[in-house]
């Protein structure tokens, strides 16, 4: 227990306080200790130290800066985006044109007349010999009008061809 406080007066100056506030409290409680319960059985957390656990409001200036940055980014991005769109459109147009354009391919058929018969021509197409009668269509697309076997000649609507033997 605490000592009983005594009252003392000094002759010079203001009187010193006879009791400290703590002594008053101790006298009032008649004890110099206070017992608290329920402070045992604790477990210490493995949490990082000195980290505020409260969620603070987002700073307004940071929000404004983010909005401004977003606007700037949109402006910076929109120009290349439009250019890219135009390029893509032009490329698609070009590719489409190339794809759907009609292509004229030269006929791969190689042919020549072997001989002139009485009723038609013997024509060599590739490695095969076919007989084309008068009135039929030649591999060139022309129609065979007539043949002259002794003279080894034939006629189409546009030309008359005489075969000659090479030495």
């Amino acid at each position, binding site marked *: 227990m605490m000592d009983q406080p005594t009252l003392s007066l000094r002759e010079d100056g203001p009187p010193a306080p006879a009791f400290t506030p703590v002594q008053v*409290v*101790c006298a009032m409680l008649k004890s110099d200790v206070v017992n608290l319960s*329920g402070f045992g059985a*604790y477990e210490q957390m493995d949490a990082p130290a000195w980290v505020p656990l409260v969620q603070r409001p987002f700073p307004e200036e940071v929000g404004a800066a983010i909005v401004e940055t977003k606007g700037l980014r949109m402006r910076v991005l929109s120009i290349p985006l439009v250019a890219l769109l135009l390029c893509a459109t032009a490329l698609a147009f070009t590719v489409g044109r190339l794809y759907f354009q009609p292509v004229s391919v030269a006929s791969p058929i190689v042919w020549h007349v072997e001989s002139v018969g009485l009723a038609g021509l013997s024509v060599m197409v590739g490695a095969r010999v076919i007989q084309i009668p008068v009135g039929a269509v030649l591999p060139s697309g022309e129609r065979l009008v007539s043949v002259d076997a002794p003279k080894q000649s034939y006629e189409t609507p546009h030309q008359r061809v005489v075969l000659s033997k090479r030495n």
Partner: protein
Amino acid sequence: MSKPSMSAFVADQHQGDLPAVGETAGVADVNSLSMRLEEHQICFVVPAGARIDAQTLDLPGGILVLGALRGKVTCACGSAIIALGGEFQGSLDAVDIYIEGRVTSKVVSQAPVLTKLRARGVAAAGGGFHSGLVAFSTTSVVQAHVQARAFHIPRQADLKRTVLETLMS
């Protein structure tokens, strides 16, 4: 690593050496905490059964709340102790805060305006702070915004929507 008892833990607070977080782990073997009023510089008591509505209470030392106290309390030094049966509402600023009783918050239009508890600690001579502890008892019922440099929170403490904030140097 040895398992510290609660008394050793509190003694460490008084020495100004907060145990590093994660350094100690274990279960205390004592449930009661005996606090010397002189050490905690208790200079004001709200007696049991008393009800005080104070606008502002600026105290030169700590406070022991056995009754009901509402208002803005600032302890220049020492600890604030809300003992079992004691109740506090408002704003409380002290070096350390020990809560065994109730801390309530004012309800304004169905939304609680949280009572603010702040254990600010003491500036150390070599820089930084020591103390600044808020210790909750297993019997405590608290709804508040609590700021401290260290917390002692048992599992049984009733912290209903209490906000805990660690103060930094």
